[in-house]
């Protein structure tokens, strides 16, 4: 699910942008350390392929359709960190060039549809491999891993919508998860099918992916720790200026009696939100600070950690 | 400048165990236009990839001009040896024709002005100047093949090695490609199945089979030798068969 702009509130999208920036920067650093130019060209070709495969729609119940995500495949074949870069590229193109997914929420989309898939699917696959290294185990591991990746990312979306005050938790969760269980089955079948074919015809590709994943997952704990600190820090900064909606939401509690119209922001021209004028300015302040902080972080991290490679 | 390319006792085995070349000895002298013939899997592509160091020989050495091919001499040798592969889509990897042709000169560190000149000259050489701003996927196959050649010509190599330059071209495209090759002043080695092109264009032929050189001499002699041709998975060119 590509979240559009405006669905998430400032503290949520800012935190996720920072988290994504950190993750992507580290992934770039990991690649410079571990991948040679041949493997990088391979990543590029795979990115083109996944981008093309995303045009594959498959029918879900009720006349609607889902499409292939690809983060699980990227993670399985390239390793988690390279997979993150590949999915970032795909999502960047979709957001900027096709309006599929918002700009401010790019961080959220990268984490939901990139990072989660690239780590969950290979992890599940590795668990299956510990138990049994047969061909069937590989295929089922890939399929099950992809399924969980899709479902987990939908849970992430539901959480993000809830913390933004755009949706009530249980409703968002049940709808998202139900929808994505179906999509997850489709993605699991497709990924499993691809892995089945490759395991038979060119198993070296899977082996290379397994090696990359193995070294990828070692660095995860370090990076997660860093990200957690970043995320906590930024959300502290941004949440000292509560959003109009959340002020209402957290004050009034979940699922309570309908809130009087006057305290909810309405698009009518002469609306005023009684008693929350300071909050309004606070939102603006948070917005500006959040945007600038994120921008600076993104710039600094990417420019610092991914300086141009020296000529070979 | 002495420009010859010499293979001395070169042997190569692929990582998966496939034996590709076995003690190959070859000398190409400056300005020669040579055909490299042989059945599929004989080792023609391997010879190409060894020439500029993409593959490293297990035994023997390769000498380009006065430089022996080693890890340190890769850069200068790659500037002197140009490879044109069979599938143009593998070589046109930038988003416009201009950028593809500029890729080689830019990597060499030439100034912007020099690069532009090289691009213009290369496009002129293949008579496709009007396609400079086009994207590769908007080109016809024949145009792609010529632009792929242009990307290498822009580097002004002393040695040009081409892999199946006339394959999949329509007759006119093939004729244009042949005229183009005829006009190239540098040393040219062409791996091909197009026996008629070899007969018409290339005075010397090397036949390789099973990873070894089995014949090396004037084209008009070797290609007219039916026994030789048939025993190495080839046949007489039409121009000989039907004359």
């Amino acid at each position, binding site marked *: 699910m590509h979240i*559009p702009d405006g669905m998430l509130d400032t503290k949520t999208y800012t935190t996720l942008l920072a988290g994504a920036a950190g993750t992507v920067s580290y992934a770039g650093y990991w690649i410079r350390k571990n991948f040679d130019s041949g493997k990088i060209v391979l990543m590029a070709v795979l990115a083109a392929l996944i981008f093309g495969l995303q045009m594959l729609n498959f029918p879900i119940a009720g006349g609607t359709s889902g499409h292939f995500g690809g983060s699980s495949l990227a993670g399985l074949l390239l390793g988690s960190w390279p997979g993150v870069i590949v999915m970032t590229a795909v999502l960047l193109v979709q957001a900027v060039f096709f309006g599929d997914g918002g700009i401010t929420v790019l961080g959220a989309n990268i984490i939901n549809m990139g990072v989660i898939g690239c780590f969950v699917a290979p992890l599940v696959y590795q668990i299956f491999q510990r138990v049994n290294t047969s061909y069937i185990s590989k295929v089922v591991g890939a399929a099950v891993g992809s399924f969980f990746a899709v479902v987990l990312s939908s849970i992430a979306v539901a959480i993000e919508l809830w913390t933004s005050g755009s949706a009530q938790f249980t409703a968002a969760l049940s709808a998202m998860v139900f929808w994505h269980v179906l999509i997850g089955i489709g993605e699991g079948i497709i990924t499993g*099918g*691809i*892995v089945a074919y490759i395991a038979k015809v060119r198993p070296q590709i899977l082996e290379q992916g397994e090696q990359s994943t193995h070294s990828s997952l070692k660095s995860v704990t370090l990076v997660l720790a860093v990200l957690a600190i970043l995320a906590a820090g930024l959300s502290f900064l941004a949440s000292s200026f509560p959003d109009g909606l959340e002020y209402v939401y957290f004050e009034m509690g979940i699922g309570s009696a309908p809130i009087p119209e006057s305290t909810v922001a309405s698009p009518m021209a002469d609306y005023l939100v009684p008693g929350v004028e300071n909050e309004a300015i606070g939102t603006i302040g948070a917005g500006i600070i959040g945007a600038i902080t994120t921008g600076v972080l993104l710039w600094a991290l990417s420019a610092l950690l991914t300086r141009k490679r020296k*000529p070979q | 400048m002495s420009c010859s390319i010499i293979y001395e006792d070169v042997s190569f085995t692929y990582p998966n165990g496939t034996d590709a070349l076995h003690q190959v000895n070859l000398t190409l002298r400056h300005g020669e236009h040579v055909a490299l013939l042989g059945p599929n899997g004989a080792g023609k592509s391997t010879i190409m990839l060894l020439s500029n160091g993409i593959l490293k020989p297990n035994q023997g050495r390769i000498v380009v001009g006065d430089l022996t091919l080693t890890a340190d001499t890769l850069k200068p040798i790659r500037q002197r040896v140009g490879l044109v592969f069979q599938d143009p889509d593998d070589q046109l990897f*930038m988003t416009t024709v201009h950028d593809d042709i500029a890729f080689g000169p830019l990597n060499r560190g030439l100034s912007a002005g020099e690069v532009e000149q090289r691009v213009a000259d290369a496009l002129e050489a293949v008579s496709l100047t009007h396609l400079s701003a086009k994207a590769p996927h908007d080109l016809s196959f024949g145009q792609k093949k010529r632009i792929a050649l242009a990307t290498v010509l822009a580097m002004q190599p002393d040695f040009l090695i081409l892999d199946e330059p006339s394959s999949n071209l329509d007759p006119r495209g093939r004729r244009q490609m042949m005229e183009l090759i005829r006009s190239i002043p540098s040393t040219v080695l062409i791996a091909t199945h197009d026996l008629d092109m070899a007969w018409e264009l290339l005075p010397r032929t090397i036949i390789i089979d099973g990873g070894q050189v089995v014949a090396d001499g004037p084209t008009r002699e070797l290609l007219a030798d039916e026994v030789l041709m048939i025993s190495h998975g080839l046949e007489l060119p039409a121009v000989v068969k039907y004359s």
Partner: protein
Amino acid sequence: MNPFNSLTPQSKLLGAVIMVVGIVVSAPHTAFSAGAVVLLVSALAIIAEARIGQMLLRSLVVLPVAGMLSLFYPLRFVAELTPAAFVTAYATYWQPMLALIVTPWLCVLVMMFLMEICTQEDILYAMECLHLPHILVLLLTFMFRYVDVMRYQLRASRRALVSRAPGLSARRQVMLYGNLAGSMLIRAYDQGERIHAAMLSRGYTGILPRLRSERMAVPDAIFLVCTIVFACGLLLYH
């Protein structure tokens, strides 16, 4: 006289992002603020001789997702699980719902306008100038170059599949499509190796070289200042 021609792609991209951030931060929008944005973009589109119809059409891509997500909003105001309560909630809070759809639509409209005044190449160059990590630049370049090749191969394989096996069960079809994707993947891998060989043969140093160099100048500064002023105007109005 198209003033956009004298702007660098970097400033156009930056301007668009500033607008998007301004729109997002000043949400929810009233009819007036939304109208102001639409008017501004339309005016700029006319000046830039952009295809307004195309822009509007392409901006509609966001409506299904935004519409669907906006449906969640009134749910917390449903007092009890009766149809009447649902109807009341939706009837009362249709305006915030609309606001939730309008914001993303305005953002996508701005981005689609950006697509009209810049080519793909331009945006890629702009991203590189703005220090997008080089590996992403490389990936994006290849994606733009090879996605058409991949799609063509996909279509050709599909055609071959269909002509050789017309009446297959759904399960067999799924398996065959898995094979199709798998074989495309292996072909992509092999092609990647060949491309890399071609790149090395032409002196590839690990960085894609670029000839283009456009520095930001006075017109860009003016453009960016105007954009920031408009965005702040949106914020202050809110």
